[in-house]
């Protein structure tokens, strides 16, 4: 009798086999994905839907539903929920990557058609809207000058503010500065443009100029510089400061000779990322710099052009030739921004501050 009782658990566990549940083979998600893409295309073709967006959405829906059904059948409800979450996350990833890849692909493929040395070294002087040719030189020059001036204004102020917040700041003023720097990061670029418009142009009665645009860009750039510099200065180990102060070195020299050099890699990165951000700003330039077809090397007088503004203008003209120019200028702009970004991140990795232990 007791024999039979003892044997019972063994008898029960035998059909269950190992401790784990039945599992779908590892290639299932890939197979379901391939199947649902095929089904999406098939149904889309059969129903004659125009938009490939719909095909994709159908495929995504099928993917999630089929993997849920399969898993709940084989592995149980909890695993099925897990599988749905996983497939949803993958769908999100694909959903995001598709438009972004398409953006990159369209810009490069359309831009490369017009982009050449001639395009980079000539202005639009005397080029008719429906005429091929012309170039982006005046806009490139304008962008570099405006962004340069903006950096000259914003970088020192931003840097010193960050130094204040990290090294000196205590009490109400520092709290207020921190809060408003954060809020300032979110100012829409067009509002910064309107501010300079209301003071510089309407009150002080100056005409459009590259400098006016640069001031608006500087307003947009400052908070970004402050934020990134602040983060970098906080990473500098306190022991370095204390060692320097213990040697009797004044605080300002400690900051200039010890703290800033330690963090210089990160600070450079931050400034370059900020430069990359304002390079693409169109709205303030549209309001304040006005745009021109001619080369105007003087940022302090007269209308200038800039790359983003050039893209906008050429798109607005709307002829085939001008839209082609818009794409080429967009490619130049995106290349400019991306190179700045990559170099900046490269510097960040190369010169990352040594964080104590």
């Amino acid at each position, binding site marked *: 009798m007791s024999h039979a009782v003892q044997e019972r658990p063994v008898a029960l566990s035998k059909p269950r086999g190992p401790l784990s549940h039945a599992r779908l083979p590892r290639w299932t998600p890939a197979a379901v994905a391939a199947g649902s893409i095929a089904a999406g295309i098939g149904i889309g073709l059969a129903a004659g839907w125009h938009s490939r967006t*719909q095909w994709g959405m159908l495929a995504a829906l099928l993917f999630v539903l089929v993997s849920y059904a399969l898993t709940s059948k084989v592995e149980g409800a909890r695993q099925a929920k897990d599988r749905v979450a996983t497939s949803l996350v993958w769908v*999100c990833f694909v959903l995001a990557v598709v438009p972004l890849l398409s953006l990159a692909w369209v810009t490069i493929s359309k831009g490369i058609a017009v982009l050449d040395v001639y395009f980079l070294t000539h202005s639009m002087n005397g080029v008719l809207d429906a005429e091929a040719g012309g170039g982006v030189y005046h806009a490139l020059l304008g962008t570099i000058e405006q962004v340069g001036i903006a950096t000259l204004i914003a970088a020192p102020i931003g840097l010193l503010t960050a130094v204040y917040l990290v090294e000196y700041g205590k009490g109400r003023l520092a709290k207020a500065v921190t809060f408003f720097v954060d809020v*300032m990061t979110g100012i829409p670029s067009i509002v910064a443009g309107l501010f300079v418009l209301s003071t510089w142009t309407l009150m002080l009665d100056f005409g459009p100029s590259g400098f006016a645009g640069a001031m608006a860009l500087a307003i947009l750039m*400052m908070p970004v510089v402050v934020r990134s510099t602040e983060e970098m200065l906080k990473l500098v180990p306190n022991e370095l400061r204390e060692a320097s102060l213990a040697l009797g070195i004044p605080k300002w020299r400690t900051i200039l000779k010890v703290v800033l050099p330690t963090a210089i890699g990160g600070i450079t990165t931050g400034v370059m990322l900020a430069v990359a951000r304002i390079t693409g700003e*169109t709205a303030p330039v549209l309001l304040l710099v006005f745009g021109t077809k001619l080369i105007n090397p003087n940022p302090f007088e007269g209308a200038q052009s800039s790359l983003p503004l050039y893209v906008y203008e050429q798109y607005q003209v709307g002829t085939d030739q001008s839209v082609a120019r818009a794409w080429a200028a967009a490619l130049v702009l995106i290349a400019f921004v991306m190179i700045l970004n990559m170099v900046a991140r490269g510097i960040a990795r190369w010169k990352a501050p040594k964080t104590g232990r």
Partner: protein
Amino acid sequence: MVTTTPPATDQNRSRRASSAVRPGDRIFSGLSKGSGITLLVIMAAIAVFLTYRAVLAISDDSANFFTTFEWNPAGDPPVFGIAVLAFGTIVSSVIAMAIAVPVAIGIALFISHYAPRKLAKPLAYVVDLLAAVPSIIYGLWGAIFLVPYLDGLNQWLDQYLGWTYIFDKSADGVARNMFTVGILLAIMILPIITNVTREVFLQAPKMHEEAALALGATRWEVIRMAVLPFGRSGIISASMLGLGRALGETMAVAVVLSPSFALSLHLLDPGGGTFAQNIAAKFNEADAYGRDALIASGLVLFVITLLVNGAARMIIARRKEYSGANA
């Protein structure tokens, strides 16, 4: 961060040395403090000058500034109001948020918890880069590439969801409408929201996750029980940062939308407008008074983004206080 001992030693030494604070120190701390104050002054100046010009404009407005469906500051008497702009701004941002927030959380989870290690790092890098793509390029791509692609989707929505009223398409035409603008804005703010939420998810306490796993939780259960509750305030603040960006976006909307001053709930019909788009579109033809009117609408936008961003920062700041407790 800085210890308070150095000033104390300075004071002790001041008995021997004649000067307590070196002139270099005074100049340098003054300079850095001055820069901080400069920033505050700029913020204050923005508020003051925009308000000043806006008051000039609104006092001559013969219609109610907040409820009028018209923008004609050059008329006699001038008539303009922000009702359509406010509506369009909110609608496009709501669409953008409804699409972008769930997808961004998905991508952030993908990078932090799902993707194979080898894929996660480069992916995070690419998302970082995408946050830097200028908005005018999104606009150009949206107008030339996205609009024709969404035509089919629009027809489909009209056909099957037309009964919901908002998806009813009353006129034929290309998809230069609020719905397209919302989708484009969603694509634009996706990288920003993803970046912030990813950071928060990566900070989720590893102990909690491992404890849940040890109890036999599936990966989704780990995320639902350990990661999402930890990241909730991060998600909220990231979304609000994205919202601030979507509210103020100018060029992408200006390029894609075919604007009109009619308030319509039909999202698929061309028309409507947003604050920023209206400023960019009307600026060139505006006279001095028209510019003041545009500045008045810009002030409203400024206040809205200020509130949204301020709220986001408050949430982040509150989080900081107790995030130190869980290591």
